[in-house]
């Protein structure tokens, strides 16, 4: 079947099977910034925004995304670059495989929570796993980023 998706503000048509998940369709369209990590909705690497809210695209039927605004990290490149400065300054980008999904969730959190505590940050981002950093550097980066954004 053919579906029509709104991806980063552009309309894209895609061939897809009825039971196919959004990650597969996005990657096939060339949106390789959406990563596939675990197949079970645990790791968060496949995170995209659906109408501004983070979802796991590996567990979301592509057909259900019709009529919604899909945002990948490339749709928020300017903001993502700002956050990347803080993340890389802590060395907390590491292998980077979780980074696009993680960064999208950070940007969504910034919009959703005002003045989050460290516990709030950890909780909001609990679904974005990272095997490299031990998370401490990412927390340092997020705190500094939020501080700079709010200044």
């Amino acid at each position, binding site marked *: 079947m053919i579906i029509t998706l709104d991806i980063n503000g552009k309309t894209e048509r895609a061939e897809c099977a009825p039971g196919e998940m959004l990650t597969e369709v996005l990657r096939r369209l060339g949106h390789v910034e*959406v990563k596939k990590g675990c197949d079970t909705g645990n*790791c968060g690497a496949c995170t995209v925004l659906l109408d501004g809210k983070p979802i796991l695209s590996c567990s979301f039927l592509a057909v259900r995304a019709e009529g919604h605004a899909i945002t990948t990290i490339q749709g928020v490149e300017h903001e993502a670059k700002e956050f990347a400065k803080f993340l890389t300054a802590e060395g907390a980008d590491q292998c980077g495989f979780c980074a696009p999904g993680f*960064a999208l969730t950070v940007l969504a959190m910034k919009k959703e929570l005002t003045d989050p505590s460290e516990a709030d940050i950890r909780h909001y981002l*609990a*679904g974005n796993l990272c095997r490299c950093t031990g998370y401490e550097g990412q927390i340092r980066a997020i705190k500094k980023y939020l501080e700079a954004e709010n200044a």
Partner: protein
Amino acid sequence: MREYVGTPTQETRELEATRKFNIVAHNVSKVDGEGLVLGRPAYTDDLAPRDALHVKLIRSPHAFARIISIDAAEALKLPGVACVLTWKDCPRIPITRAGQGNPEPSPHDRFILDEYVRYVGDEVAVVAAEDEATAEKAASLVKVEYEVFEPVLDFEKALDNPTVIHPEPEIHEMFPIGFEPKRNIAAAYHMEIGDVEKELADCPVTVEHTVYTQSQQHVALEPHTAFSYLDLQGRLNIVTSTQNPWHTRRLLGLALQMPLSRIRIVKPRIGGGFGGKQHVHVEPYVAMVTLRTGKPAKLVLNRREVFESTFTRHEMRVSIRLGADRDGTLRAIDMKLLSNTGAYGEHALTVFMVGGSKTLPLYNKVKAVRFGGHVVYTNKVSAGAYRGYGAIQGLTGLEAAIDELAHKLGMDPVELRRKNMLHEGETSEVFRIMGEGTEGVAMTIDSCKLEECIRRGKELIGWEPDRLAWEVAPGRIRAKGMAIAMQGSGIPLIDMGSARLELQDGGFFKLHVGATDLGTGSDTILAQIAAEELGVDMKDIIIHSSDTDHTPFDVGAYASSTTYVSGSAVLKAARSMKQKLIEAVARKFGVAPEQVIYERKRFRTADGAKSLSLEEFSFDTLYHDGEHMQTIAVTESFSGEKSPPPYLAAFVEIELDRETGKVDVINYVAVADVGTPINTSLAKIQIEGGLLQGIGMALYEDVRYSEKGHMLSHSMMTYPIPSREDVGRITVELVDSYEPSGPFGAKSAGEIGIDTPPAAISNAIRNATGVRLTKLPFTPERVLMAIKEAEKHI
């Protein structure tokens, strides 16, 4: 200037130690960081050709079986199916999948595809089709008949079991490693210094401790992935998420019976490795399909396959006996291991030996030490390399036994360690006797700031030996524990890395290295080393790595080798480049090289009469200097004559719930001596990340099987890794240290972080409850049962 990175003189040592750095020992952002965060195409699957065939592997549903027949007729009828390949399509050449030196210290006990399957998930056949759905459908249509055998699943029953897992006649060891497949032994090792039994018999105080350490999964977020294609010259090109491109090329050449000149391996960005990609898991299968069909082919393992069919950490039984005087003088260590290598013997001996070689030297003053045991085959997924291999298992036993000794002596465990541990300027016989799979290399410890690590760690955790456990609420106990660790920095005289520098028009340099950045940031730190030595900025170094066609050789990223081994190669290359530039400019100036001074990207004569910028010279040498025009390029290599260990002192505070048995890590303090951290942020992150993997292993990560040998923990649902809510705080500091043999004083940082958590947390639980746990992970059930068991005896 030092002539050789590995052998500094006293003078250069002092000079270097007080040197002010501009780029190394600073925080420099990773050169690829922004691109990765923005999701630019970077990893293997991102780069795969759109028309690549999709490869799917049919895997064994049985733990041990012989394939009677494979019927692919129905599958081949399906439109879009390109081929189905079985063991009959493979050369009958035994190989190892372990990425190691040549010859490998692992037995060649594996075929790309075999008539026998030896664990659930073992490869049976390869299916390729035009799209993934068709490949999966085709795989389901292939009919395989098996003759099923009784598997060996319990590694304590493997030795001399009636079931022989490897009866095939072609398999062999490359040199003596104790390989006895008829007894299910993949490797064996034994060594003794002094007379351990006699010494133990003489000791007034002895302790014994046995602990079972579980197998653990790497869980790099990027699954193992490779694609292959034939280039215009008909050469096989493979792009793969590997930690060791050259070993992969060599092993594939053997497996496929191809000249190495016909194969190219490229490593793009990798989404994590941790040792899990130090092997050949996906490459042979895409290669077979491309060679058979002439078409590009790709294989991305799904997460279940990564769990079930790549490698895990070696499960071990670690038995320790210690003997000491009443004043705490440690006199003898006896360490006996039994290691489970699973179905194939990849890294069997090396991991085993590290269990002793990177633990026993910590207590170098003992009169007698013994180490040995067997590595056995079972019908479980193969074990392989995993960050901290051997060391984490050995230390989990040894550091718990040291604490038991402290309890028995009524001593502060910190003071017991300080009294007996290794110090700067000392050595250990173990270094000479035990290497990784071979004899070791004698070495004197030129940098060891373990005392300072301990001092600072105590301060950060608030260590009070009289108050190591206290109740914070009814049934909730806070407790502290500690452990120390060492690692290595590459394998001496075996690991080799090389680097090539070339001046470009514009006054910048190409830096080509074989080293393999797994996401650790090694491309960045290697560029930092070159920039520091050449007196240029980071933007003046263009780094390219890990391509067997285009970069110089490197064994790969493992054994904590990249900073020390590959980094030393880069430093040597930068020094040679400087010398070559000065010679070329001297000829231009018409003066002797000694009269040319180079600083801040500018050459001048000592008298100041002549001056030329690096940029001007770069154009002159490539466009303007007529018969003197030349490419200024150098290639240098480095193999370590020693493997200077980094050290770490860990202190943990836990909260233990006596009602549920749950253990929470409140604060994990680790103070490490990694020599000069080439990149302060990246070194710290290495330790932090390693600690959390170690904490996961200590508390809940576990590879579980059914009675038939099916893995039960084959998803991130059933094998959870730590999330950012699971640990209170991780506090890492690096102490001032300078390793004279390392590049700008650096040692390794990649593995040392993972080594301590199981031991330190075991010691904290002991302090909280009075009970010593003997089986990892320390789940609430195990903690609770141990407490209840102990209560029975009161």
